[in-house]
């Protein structure tokens, strides 16, 4: 348990570094006095940073790493070793890369990106994995019973509405957000239209009124097996190379979408255990509605195991991001990440500082995430 505490402290520290990245490393002072006024340039990040170095203010408190990650220091040769004095006698604590970019500042910027990727992709994985896993585990194959008319309305009406939106409304050339809204709207409208129609019909046709079990569990399992059989990293490389303008948002989205199965699997197992517990049966007998039962009684008790997987997922998505930026796909070339620094060290093997420090931060992060996952 001591191990887990240290891991938690380290991850909290990383999070702090990510939040305070601008104060920790940057080419502008934290506090500066100029023209008799106090300025906080590091918090505002407005205008080019060089204005603060050129017209030296009266007094200033500089960040401990006085360089920005993307700033190239032309006064030192490329691949300067640690503690080299750069422009204005400010030290490069951990050396520079080929372009004279500060390694320590790159580490801080890389931490921010790693945290974005870890937390963002986790959120997406949770967004997809939690509903599917919870439904599959809690209701199983016969927990949800719907009339055939409802199922037909959902399946045919929903997909019909979706197809209509894709086939016809894309022609109107809406923006991406409007398109998303239109897609949802059309699906809902299609479902409800068919539902109303079938409601009328099913008064006459008994077959439509018969309630049948919806095999939620089987469907989710099928989805899981399908996504597991996709080779993750390989697909990631392929997908990211399709996009010309690579962005972190896309990277986060794809890593999250590939990772939902882990969340769903654990939550499903936990829900299967919980649904047979006596307090659920007691609540059901005392008249708690099914949806409330799931959301208020079962789900809160299943949070802990999911949190454990979540920690592991954060680690593995950060690892995936580093691997991708090491390969040079995913994040754009001018962005400094742990992976891109490691890649630079391959170009110039003597620059050990470019291999050791980013790798060490990555390793510690992954180890911390792994040890939060109790074995």
């Amino acid at each position, binding site marked *: 348990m001591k191990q887990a505490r240290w891991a938690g402290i380290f991850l909290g520290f990383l999070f702090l570094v990510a939040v305070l990245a601008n104060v920790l490393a940057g080419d502008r002072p934290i506090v500066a006095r100029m023209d008799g006024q106090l300025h906080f340039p590091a918090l505002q990040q407005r205008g080019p940073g060089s204005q603060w170095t050129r017209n030296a203010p009266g007094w200033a408190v500089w960040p401990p790493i006085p360089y920005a990650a993307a700033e190239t220091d032309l006064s030192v040769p490329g691949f300067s070793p640690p503690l080299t004095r750069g422009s204005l006698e400010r030290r490069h604590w951990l050396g520079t890369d080929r372009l004279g970019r500060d390694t320590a500042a790159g580490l801080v910027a890389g931490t921010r990106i790693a945290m974005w990727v870890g937390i963002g992709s986790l959120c997406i994985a949770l967004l997809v994995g939690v509903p599917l896993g919870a439904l599959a585990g809690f209701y199983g194959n016969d927990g949800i019973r719907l009339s055939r008319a409802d199922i037909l309305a959902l399946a045919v009406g929903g997909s019909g509405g979706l*197809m*209509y939106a*894709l*086939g*016809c409304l894309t*022609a*109107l*050339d809406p923006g991406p957000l409007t398109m998303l809204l239109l897609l949802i709207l059309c699906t809902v409208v299609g479902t409800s239209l068919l539902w109303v129609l079938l409601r009328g019909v099913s008064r006459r046709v008994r077959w439509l009124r018969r309630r049948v079990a919806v095999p939620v569990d089987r469907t989710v399992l*099928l989805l899981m*097996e*399908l996504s*597991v*059989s*996709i*080779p*993750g*990293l*390989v*697909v990631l*490389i*392929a*997908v*990211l*190379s*399709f996009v*010309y303008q690579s962005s972190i948002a896309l990277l986060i989205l794809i890593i999250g979408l590939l990772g939902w199965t882990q969340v769903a*699997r654990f939550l*499903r*197992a936990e829900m*299967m255990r919980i649904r047979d517990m006596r307090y659920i049966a007691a609540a059901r007998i005392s008249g708690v509605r099914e949806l409330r039962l799931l959301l208020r009684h079962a789900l809160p008790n299943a949070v802990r195991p999911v949190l454990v997987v979540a920690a592991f997922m954060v680690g593995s998505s950060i*690892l995936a991001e*580093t*691997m991708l930026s*090491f*390969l*040079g*796909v995913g994040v754009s070339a001018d962005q400094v990440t742990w992976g891109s620094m*490691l890649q630079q*060290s*391959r170009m110039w*093997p*003597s620059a*050990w500082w470019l*291999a*050791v420090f980013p*790798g060490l931060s*990555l*390793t510690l992060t*992954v*180890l911390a995430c*792994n*040890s939060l996952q109790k*074995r």
Partner: protein
Amino acid sequence: MPYLLRRLLYLPLSLLLLSLLCFAFTRAAPGDPVERRMSSEAARSLSQDPEVYLQNYRRLAREMGYDLPPFYITFTNAAIPDTLHRIVVAEHRATARALAHHFGNWPEVQDYFRRVQAISLGLPGTDGQVVSTARRLLLRADPQYVERALRQLPPAIAAPLTAPYLAMQKAATPSRVLLPRIYWNGLENQYHRYLMNLLRGEWGVSYSDRRPVAEKISVTLPRTLLLNGLALLVVYLFAVPLGLYMAQYRDSRFDRWATVLTFLAYGVPGFWVATLLANFFTTPAFGMDYFPSMGFGEVPAGAGWLQVARIRAAHLFLPVLCLAYPSFAYVSRHLRTAALSELRQPYVRTARMKGLSGSRVLWKHVFRNASFPLVTMLGGLLPALLAGSVLIEKIFNLPGMGQLLYNAALARDWPVVTAVVLLNGLLTILGLVLADLGYALLDPRVSLNKPRNP
């Protein structure tokens, strides 16, 4: 349905889905595949002789199947005809589609577009100004742009373009866009052809060097399999004894150290260690240039097997080490847990009481029962190794399938990328199925028809 049968049914289903994904990506990818296939002389004729260029383009597009509808079914709206795919040039097709979406009356749009196409060929007798405008209009559908371009021409010359444009504008029925249409294209479509070619083993032609993809893969696949096979061998050869002895000497100093070390090994990213090792031991940067820095090694003709083994070992030692050690840690930790629970069973005590030695109990009784998870783990290990070998091959400059994928992805060489993705998917799924099969075959108690513990 029996579990195994279902599992075997999933196999083609997943592959089908993956192939659909790959196909969709190749279609959606930026860049015109026909143009990339064209020889540079043919491409140059675009400016000199558009008619020849168009002929070349059409011939090549027909060869590659780009004159077919993309999929079995087309979901679209009433403004778009079912014959739109017959406009083979991708850029022109996009213009025609945009025009149809805007005006909604296909006969008139078709009339206008054909006229623009005919004039853009620049047949003798047409005015040069009109020709250049028509060529621009082939690529632009924005009505304001079209009108401005037409207004800039002298009215007398522009008449053959203006008349159909006005007719199109007059009879516009933009509301047709809102009517849905479904077209059934039959089996003669691009996806069907792509799928059939895949099944026949024709994986397409690489964009970058026009060599068949199958040939490229058949060169690189054995190398990657050698690398991964060796790694797998190392994993199981060393992880099994370690895991068993860790369980046997539970809570001893050996066990505690091994637990910590395997935890570290599992967490420390393999590609970082590979980077470090490659920087330190394969380059002269630190005076420790002990290992060769690239390739699988040249084997001289008539070399004895010992020499071959020595050369291969020098080249493959570090890559296999880096590829194997995370899985090694994973397997040994799992085996330790499994063996621990077996050691508590009464049959172990019985065997000990009968006077069997500790190692005999461990290897004959405990190992057999604790080894079942090892088989299922194999299924999960295979994709991880394959993915890991992309990085390892990149770092140690091994020209295997991972390098092939990486280079193809950077060069946007989609036929190669999709082929490697599909092959990887196939290997992954086969690994999962084989692991399940092996599990059932080894352990007679396991019935695959029963729902397994999640």
